[in-house]
């Protein structure tokens, strides 16, 4: 246990990397996911095909395959960036496909009759989106987006497999260097549980805040 306290700075750095990857990855994935969902709903056929192919390809290839492909494959065609950037980008691209699906099914929860009614009342497309579709779709998207956030948090640990020394990577280093397997795994587990619990709590709060009181 003393070794953990002595080297808590190292562990904190690992935690910092995990949090940085989680937050940057989720922000980028959210932006790209929204863009993909817009393309998927748009009336332009090639864009729609592009988005649906993207979603099919990225969802069906395991994240670890993406990570090794990006980290060890891309330098072969001259695309070499810092390890952390590469890993974060790979994660953002992977999770964007899932976020796109969540947004699409969120939009689908809005009954078509309401949209038709709004059009009959003379609402323009932007007005329909702003006053009708987005408020209702957001509510049904909070829970699944929260789940994706938690899954992304846990999956940042896969970066350890390609050599990023984030929380899980540090746990491995501590085990090998200081020979304290059980305490370090207990501590890292506790940190991960704390992170997922916080994620769940924030999601629940948001959901209650956005809910309509009937």
């Amino acid at each position, binding site marked *: 246990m003393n070794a953990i306290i002595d080297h808590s700075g190292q562990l904190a750095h690992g935690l910092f990397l995990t949090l940085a990857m989680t937050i940057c990855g989720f922000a980028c994935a959210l932006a790209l996911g929204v863009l993909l969902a817009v393309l*998927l*709903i*748009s*009336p*332009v*056929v*090639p*864009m*729609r095909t*592009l988005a649906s192919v993207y979603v*099919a*390809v990225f*969802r*069906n*290839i*395991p*994240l*670890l*395959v*993406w990570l*090794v*492909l990006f980290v*060890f*494959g*891309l330098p*072969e*065609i*001259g*695309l070499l960036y810092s390890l952390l950037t590469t890993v974060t980008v790979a994660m953002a691209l992977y999770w964007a496909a899932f976020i796109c699906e969540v947004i*699409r099914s969120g*939009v*689908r929860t809005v009954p*078509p009759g309401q*949209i*038709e009614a709004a*059009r009959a009342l003379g609402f323009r*497309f932007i007005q*329909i989106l702003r006053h009708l579709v987005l408020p209702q779709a957001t509510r049904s998207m909070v829970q699944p987006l929260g789940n994706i956030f938690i899954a992304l948090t*846990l*999956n*940042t*640990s*896969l970066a*350890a*497999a390609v050599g990023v020394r984030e929380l*899980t990577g540090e*746990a*491995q280093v501590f*085990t*090998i260097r200081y*020979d304290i*397997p*059980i305490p370090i*795994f207990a501590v*890292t*587990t506790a940190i*991960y*549980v704390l992170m*997922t*619990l916080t994620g769940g709590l924030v999601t629940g709060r948001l959901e209650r805040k956005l809910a309509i009181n009937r």
Partner: protein
Amino acid sequence: MNTEANTLFDVPGPRGRRRIRIATALSLVAIGALALLAVHRFADHGMLAADQWRMFAQWPTIRFLLVGVQATVVVTAVAAAIAFPLGALVALARLSRSRYLHWPARAYVEIFRAIPILLLLYVFLFGLPRLGLTLPTFWQLVVPIVASNSAVIAEICRAGILALDRGQSEAAYSLGMTYRRAMHLVVIPQAVRKVTPTLVGQLVRLLKDSTLGYVVSYIELLHQAQVLGEYYHIVLPAYLVVAAVYVAINMALSRLAHRLENGTGLRVRRTRKTSDTARARLISPFLRRTR
């Protein structure tokens, strides 16, 4: 046109149609440019040369990768065969009214859902050997996958059971069924049909988790690709080929999920049609008792 577009937009008029045509042309140009850029990049670094790809048409390479596919399938199948029943049992334990079943099950689910699977794997790979317990490579890979996935499966099953209309179990109780009988005859059969597609989706996740064999050096597909790529210096082509194989396998699984969704739907309807006599037979002893 897909349904979203139909409901979100008006049917486009002449100006709208022209705009869509322009956007279509522009997007085609953009996609073409992107594809050209990618091909250019690959060609620049000699990635389109035949000797980078020739390997994948030769039988020894194909056999080498097929061994990987087989190992991936075996890991997935064994892990699924343990994780699914275990998950279902944990779900039942969590729903049970006994404190001694409920709390351990709840703790199991909450903890194993919150631990990244790689961390669990490291426990088995680096942690336990220090304490003198070394599992064979295969189980070092399978046990963490089972632990993590069974917790998720338990949550799926529990959600499926809870999502069932309360009236169903209440009706069963009012007919004098015990908790076990009501679960067995009324609740579980309906819940199973409801969660089957989600469970097949979980199978896809389980298959994705088998790529962690890369970390423990088990001979599954991703590890085979790594070995192949590093041995022949065809890292990028090897990973790309393997990625395509994963897409093929997972798409087949997703299609199976769709088929099951429709298939079980049919079965529900069919049983409903023929079930009048069955229901009468089921209810009659209870009716007789009340009379």
